[in-house]
């Protein structure tokens, strides 16, 4: 680590001779330190799930939430610096409200993603600012468009996904998700798999405690983005705990 | 404005299309009578405009504190705006001075708040009843732009002009040629207030349905309701 950068990493407005913008890569490191965040798109619903690492027992359970509502049927999950994330959420809400005011309908997630990623990208261009240390997962569901899922990275690049992950165990979560067939997945399967993946990728040795957080948008939630909705939340936690116990007993053998 | 003045023959006051009036008379009457250690204030519960009765159970007495009640009628939207402003200001006073506003202070404040809108008045008839700092009953009455007068009895609102002479006679003892005005006992004050409303309901179409009567004493505020003509 000590040899990298070598003077080219002090500003987001300068390339290094080999064509990298170090500030963006450092922002990526901030994301890698964060608890794992996943989003998965099923047949008729979409789920966001978060491994919220508990840094102190003194926090309330719902403190420092990483899943936010942006509009009726749009949710955002944040991996990385929470304060940066909240700011991005605020921007997203403004964009959604602005769209609503102009067109009297909910902003399509594709357009919201474009707006927010343009904003994130702008923060990678100037020496006066630093890039956002967040990876943003946006999810929506509606009758016409069905489930939609996008991820924006600190560089400002964004893509649509069937399933995506960010944070500590991004790779591990992606490996797990590649085993699944999302296109025909029901809401029940979706939340159970979300629970499984988050509980499986949680590293008990490095972070003892975590709080499972998830949100769902589907017909069953009346098309609304709902944080920790019942009964799905319990289903996810049960599936997660079961998967974890299975893993633990494998290790014992 | 200045541009117009350079063309004197075209000097016109501007388009004066004005079929919207911000004011509306919603009727209602108030009677308040103060005694040595009590004050009675009553208001009817009819809210109307023209020949239309909107509701038959609109309370027009606003309890501002343990010792002060404001009766407000006239343009109902102004009443709502004014009373919520008074409440807000009284809360600010309480936070700032850590005590409740005295009746005298409320009376003065009300006058100022109303005069603040001198050129676009609150179109309301206010009667403020309460106990003063010595515990004596007191009545303040106002005109729409904040003129304030301290009295011992007052009728206001749509039947105010109808009822004031009745009170002059029954409470003020104006018919008697006496130096010392008779002290009015509470029971008499209540009866006169009720009778006044029964009479007002006979002749004033904007007063009726029922009357709410509040009695303020050092022991607190009691309330009773008497039914009136509903036609």
């Amino acid at each position, binding site marked *: 680590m000590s040899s990298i950068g070598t003077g080219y990493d002090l500003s987001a407005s300068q390339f290094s001779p080999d064509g990298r913008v170090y500030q963006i890569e450092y922002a990526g490191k901030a994301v890698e330190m964060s608890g794992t965040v996943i989003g998965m798109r099923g047949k008729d619903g979409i789920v966001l799930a978060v491994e919220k690492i508990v840094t102190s027992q003194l926090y309330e359970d719902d403190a420092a939430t990483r899943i936010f509502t942006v509009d009726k049927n749009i949710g955002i999950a944040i991996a990385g610096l929470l304060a940066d994330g909240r700011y991005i959420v605020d921007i997203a809400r403004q964009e959604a*409200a602005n769209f609503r005011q102009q067109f009297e309908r909910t902003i399509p997630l594709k357009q919201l993603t474009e707006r927010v990623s343009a904003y994130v990208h702008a923060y990678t261009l100037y020496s006066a600012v630093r890039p956002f240390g967040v990876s943003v997962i946006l999810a929506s569901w509606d009758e016409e468009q069905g489930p939609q899922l996008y991820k924006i990275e600190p560089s400002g690049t964004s893509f649509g996904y069937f399933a995506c992950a960010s944070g500590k165990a991004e790779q591990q979560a992606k490996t797990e998700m590649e085993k699944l067939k999302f296109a025909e997945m029901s809401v029940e399967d979706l939340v159970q798999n979300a629970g499984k993946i988050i509980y499986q990728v949680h590293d008990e040795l490095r972070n003892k405690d975590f709080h499972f957080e998830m949100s769902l948008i589907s017909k069953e939630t009346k098309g609304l983005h709902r944080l920790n909705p019942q009964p799905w939340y319990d289903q996810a936690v049960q599936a997660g705990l079961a998967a974890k116990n299975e893993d633990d007993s494998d290790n014992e053998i | 404005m200045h541009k*117009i003045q350079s063309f004197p023959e075209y000097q016109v006051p501007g388009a004066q299309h004005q079929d919207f009036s911000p004011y509306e008379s919603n009727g209602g009457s108030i009677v308040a009578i103060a005694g040595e250690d009590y004050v009675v204030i009553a208001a009817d519960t009819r809210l109307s405009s023209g020949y239309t009765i909107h509701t038959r159970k609109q309370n027009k007495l606003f309890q501002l504190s343990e010792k002060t009640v404001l009766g407000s009628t006239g*343009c109902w939207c102004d009443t709502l705006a004014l009373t919520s402003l008074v409440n807000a*200001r009284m809360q600010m006073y309480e936070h700032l001075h850590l005590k409740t506003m005295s009746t005298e202070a409320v009376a003065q404040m009300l006058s100022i708040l109303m005069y603040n809108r001198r050129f676009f008045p609150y179109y309301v008839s206010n009667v403020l009843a309460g106990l003063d700092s010595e515990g004596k009953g007191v009545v303040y009455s106002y005109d729409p732009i904040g003129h304030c007068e301290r009295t011992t009895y007052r009728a206001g609102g749509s039947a105010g002009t109808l009822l004031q002479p009745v009170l002059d006679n029954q409470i003020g003892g104006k018919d008697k040629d006496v130096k010392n005005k008779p002290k009015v006992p509470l029971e008499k004050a209540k009866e006169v207030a009720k009778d006044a409303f029964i009479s007002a309901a006979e002749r004033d179409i904007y007063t009726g349905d029922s009357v709410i009567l509040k009695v303020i004493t050092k022991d607190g505020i009691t309330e009773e309701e008497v039914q009136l003509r509903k036609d």
Partner: protein
Amino acid sequence: MYSHNNIFQTELWKGGPSPGQFYNFPGTNYNNSNTGGFTAPDIFGSKRSSSPITTGTSVIGVKFDGGVMIAADNLVSYGSLARYQDVQRVFKINEKTIIGAGGDFADFQSLKRSIDQKMVEDMCYQDDIDMKPKSLYNWLTRILYNRRSRINPLWLEMVVGGMQDGEPFLGHVDLRGRAYEDDVVATGFGKHFALPLVREQISNGEVLTLNQASQVLRKCMEVLYYRDCRAISKYSVAVSTAQGTIVQGPFEVNQNWALATMIKGY
């Protein structure tokens, strides 16, 4: 907070008026001093919305045993022209609140955009706390009073209903900000035709059942259709109970034209 007009401040009192001053709302001038902005005309005088253009007629609201119902027909008129004949004029605001609007429909649509944005912001808090009907009612009185004080009214007469802490709530607000609550309220023509019909049913202090309420509203809509030239036979009903809110309809009123022997085609 998320709107370009600055009425959505979430911080308490920030950007708010000093007591006695007025709140700013879309369509109001930003820098109005207390007296100056109310009446001062532009150099050639100013014309404000001193009469409504596209209008809805009566709205009727009743409380019943465990809830509130608001009905209005589906017509928005353009003067005497029955211009838009399939428009909802009663709405669900959230699970606790319903609203019905008569008067200038454009004014209402603009106001409703603001209300809807408030509801989205409520959801963003993710605390499952919804705005209650009384809050919306009071907010509307302040908005309407503010606009009437600038002699630039929102030409509306609205009925707000819903469940307030388990109890039915029903209120009425008009273009001046005049507001009152009652067990039955109506706007426009409904005040003259529908109110007596409902009051007749509850005169002995009896509380209507849900069925009775929808029956009496149906009767009201029928009478209004017969006598109000700005009414049509199609109407919708918004219902609020402890279980939530729903907009039902459109329904057709019962019609009996047997007396009108020469008239065909109904």
